[in-house]
């Protein structure tokens, strides 16, 4: 039995444990330990991709440890093709995230501990083949966010308006604590819904095992599926930013420190979408088919609405945050297609958006650290002083608007194609429109921030990326282009797994896999 997967999951956790033992004054050691933990995970993920036999497909590299025998809970780890892609994503993001956090000054030990714990949870979710353990890791991945944002975040103020103005009295809207609390509570309301659904499914399958493979082979009654699926969809979907439960995301991402935004938008939101597909749609296939029109309908709202909201923002982080809402809509749209094209696209979009938004937030962090403002109206001509940042930002924008040659294109194209293939072909229209609106707001942002006359005054002496700051943009940018030009590096993994899962949806299986 290979220990590869458990190594990937445990490396960050062990690194965090070592950090706990280190004195807070050992600042370099803290960073090095964190980085080593992250790199081990990344290397492990790469190794997983190498070892995974695409020809065979299915679950591979399995490990099984009994956790709670009396309840049939096993720490059952294995990867499928989706897992490979998402492990790679997480590995890349955490390594770059650690590097992007090199300059965290306050309570840095705590910061890295929480960051590593969080990422251990994320890795865990992607390799868990036990529903309970899946949920366990899912929760772990969600909670450190509260502290990460609450302690290291940044605040601003939003004045109350509109009919619910009075509710503004209760808290400081826009503050980091508000953002952290809103994020955590909304996500945990989501987990509560998931929990109930899990209980119901577990109980109906006999109440003896949480093993996903076993649960998959159990055909749940249509009635159970019909009410558990929406719970799973909205529960996980809250993390994936499904409208109208996306509202934690802009505030959360805007308030979060760089690496946290990277991880959160880059990886955590994918956890939500992954959950909807891997748990919701696979375990409740009939309901998924029945609910698909609504899931897809909401997803296209997400795409277009998120893009339009982003177009209205003046704060750089809010732009990126809303763009995440929009792009996660693409993922959910892909999921709702219930065909291999759309599903490949959805998973690919998870990867592509993860990398892209990681790059975005890393760069925004760089800019913010230097300019100390996120109001794009105040910026201008930054390409004169930080050309590389400008170039990478543009690259991220291009992927974001789905330019061929970037990973974003492959993903969005597949999703739109998948959508067009369904009975609800109109889904593709708002989808593509959303991509256009994205082009409008991202390029406007590039123009405003990076183009224009050479900055003067306080911005005249800003510097380009330096030393460790280079890693994140270079790695992520390269990933965007490489996986954009040659998507098969990942698609070959993803494709086999999508097919396996879709086979479970009878209506779909008939059409695509006769």
């Amino acid at each position, binding site marked *: 039995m290979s220990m590869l997967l458990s190594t990937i999951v445990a490396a960050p956790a062990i690194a965090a444990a070592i950090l706990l033992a280190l004195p807070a004054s050992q600042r370099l050691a803290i960073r090095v330990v964190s980085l080593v933990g992250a790199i081990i995970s990344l290397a492990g993920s790469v190794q997983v991709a190498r070892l995974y036999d695409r020809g065979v497909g299915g679950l591979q590299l399995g490990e099984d440890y009994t956790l709670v025998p009396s309840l049939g809970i096993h720490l059952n780890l294995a990867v499928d093709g989706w897992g490979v892609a998402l492990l790679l994503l997480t590995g890349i993001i955490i390594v770059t995230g650690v590097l992007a956090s090199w300059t965290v000054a306050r309570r840095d030990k705590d910061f890295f501990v929480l960051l590593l714990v969080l990422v251990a949870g994320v890795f865990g979710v992607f390799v868990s083949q036990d529903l309970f353990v899946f949920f366990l890791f899912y929760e772990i991945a969600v909670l450190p966010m509260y502290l990460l944002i609450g302690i290291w975040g940044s605040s601003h103020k939003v004045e109350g308006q509109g009919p619910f103005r009075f509710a503004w009295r209760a808290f400081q809207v826009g503050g980091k604590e508000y953002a952290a609390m809103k994020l955590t509570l909304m996500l945990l309301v989501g987990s509560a819904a998931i*929990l109930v659904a899990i209980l119901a499914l577990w109980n109906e399958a006999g109440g003896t095992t949480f093993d996903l493979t076993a649960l998959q082979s159990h055909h749940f009654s249509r009635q159970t599926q019909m009410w558990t699926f929406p719970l799973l969809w909205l529960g996980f979907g809250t993390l994936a930013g499904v409208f109208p439960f996306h509202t934690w995301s802009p505030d959360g991402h805007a308030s979060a420190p760089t690496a946290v935004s990277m991880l959160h938008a880059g990886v955590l939101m994918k956890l939500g979408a992954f959950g909807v597909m891997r748990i919701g749609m696979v375990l409740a296939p009939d309901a998924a088919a029945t609910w698909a029109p609504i899931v897809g309908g909401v997803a296209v709202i997400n795409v277009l609405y998120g893009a339009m909201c982003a177009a209205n923002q003046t704060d750089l982080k809010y732009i990126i945050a809303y763009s995440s809402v929009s792009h996660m809509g693409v993922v959910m749209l892909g999921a709702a297609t219930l065909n291999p094209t759309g599903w490949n696209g959805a998973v690919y979009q998870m990867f592509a958006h993860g990398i892209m938004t990681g790059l975005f937030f890393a760069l925004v962090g760089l800019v913010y650290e230097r300019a100390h403002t996120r109001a794009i109206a105040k910026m201008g001509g930054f390409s004169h002083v930080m050309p590389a940042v400008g170039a990478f930002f543009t690259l991220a924008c291009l992927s974001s608007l789905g330019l061929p040659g970037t990973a974003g294109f492959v993903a969005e194209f597949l999703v739109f194609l998948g959508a067009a293939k369904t009975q609800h072909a109109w889904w593709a229209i708002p989808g593509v429109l959303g991509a256009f609106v994205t082009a409008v707001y991202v390029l406007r942002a590039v123009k405003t921030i990076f183009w224009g006359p050479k900055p003067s005054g306080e911005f005249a002496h800003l510097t380009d990326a330096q030393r460790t700051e280079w890693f994140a943009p270079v790695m992520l940018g390269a990933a965007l282009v490489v996986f954009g030009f040659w998507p098969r590096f990942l698609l070959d993994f993803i494709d086999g797994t999508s097919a396996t899962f879709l086979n479970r949806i009878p209506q779909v299986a008939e059409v695509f896999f006769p």
Partner: protein
Amino acid sequence: MSWLELLSVDLMVAGIAALVLVLDAIMPSKLGKAVGWLTAALLLGVLVATFFVPQTGTAPHQVYELSPWVMFFKRVFLVAGILGVLGALEWLADKTPRRQAEFYVLLLSSVVGMMLIPGARDWILLFVAFELMGIPLYVLAAWAKGDTVLGGKSLAAEASLKLFVTGAASSALSLFGLALVIGTTGSTQIALGGGAVTPLQGFGMLLVLAGFGFKVGAVPFHMWVPDTYQGAPTPFVAFLSVAPKAGGMAALAVVLLGGWTQAFGTWAPALAVLAFASMAVGNVFAIPQSDVRRLLGYSGIAQIGYALVGLATRTEYGVGMTLFFLATYVFTNLGIFLVVHAAAEDMGGHSTKVLAGLSRRSPWLGAALLVFLLSLAGIPFVVGFWAKFFLFLAAWKAGLTGLVWAAVALAVLGLFYYLSVARSTFMSDGSGEGKVRPGFALTAAIVLCLAAVVGLGLYPTPLLDASMSASKAFFTLR
């Protein structure tokens, strides 16, 4: 073998109490902290001894029945007693140096009472044990009678009187109910046997339930909880908040599931209502609280609501999960109160405002508090998560889906105030200066709790297996 052997553990604890009393009488002024250490050490010895004494057996006249179920509870109470003693040790020596021994005697008496509950098969024994558990608590709640409590107000009288008056009243209520139940059957055996429940018996049963409800702090018999938690000495509250609750739950289990099995139609709906009301009221009322002890009081009400859900399942599974919940609750809640106590002693108060910046002034205490809070909130890899999750599993399996829905939703609400405490202690920097340095015994107690909460969080199986086999024993023997 005398049947007294069945009670060896209880006798040992009573013996410790006697020893402490005698020692105090012989050399009252020389003992100092030693008496506390001695008590803790001896209790630890008893805890070890529980593994070597008879594990099963029945006393004559079916008054008492020893089983793994009973041993499980005994160990839980012993652990709570040890941690309670350790937690209070330094505070006692510092604040009330002249009545340390009495504190331990009363605490141990209460522990003896608790330990007798789960094995009781006769109403008289159960009732007396229940009161033995309760009466010392009235006194202990008033322990800080003379000194000015942190924050300026001495709340000892208020804390203990509220506990006492409501406690005595609920004793009377359950006595009246009991008269209705056992008077009409003519037997003091708890086991009710078959036959229909007459309305008068039903009336009585629910009065008894109300009386027990008081002890576990279930709504609407919970009103004393916040006031007492806030006013009584914190190290004692740490004990009060867990051990008597477990005792009350044991009594409920013995009576409802062991004795009145056939009459579930009468009490099961009421239990569900109590569970729901406790979860709802506890979670909602906790939100605006600024005093951490008071907040934890409401939190405790809510937590007991969850445990009641476990009992309401009426299944071996559910009871096992409840045992697991209670055992972990001992570590979690004792731990959190001890941390709050340690912090408050050096920071000068128990409000969230005063405790702000704890983790800056003492990183490990801040982290410990965070861990306990997360455990109470039910976040993974600390034991509270498993506890809640297992309960929900059992409840769902038993068909109590409505309660699970409510419990899950209210658990999220609970997060709101747990995180508020974390926000203050872990996130904000606060204004005070200086380290927070709890004494050795207190540190030891906190570390033990922390180790249990984290360790069981990572690998809950041993405790779960113990709980399940205890529950199994209970259901086999009843």
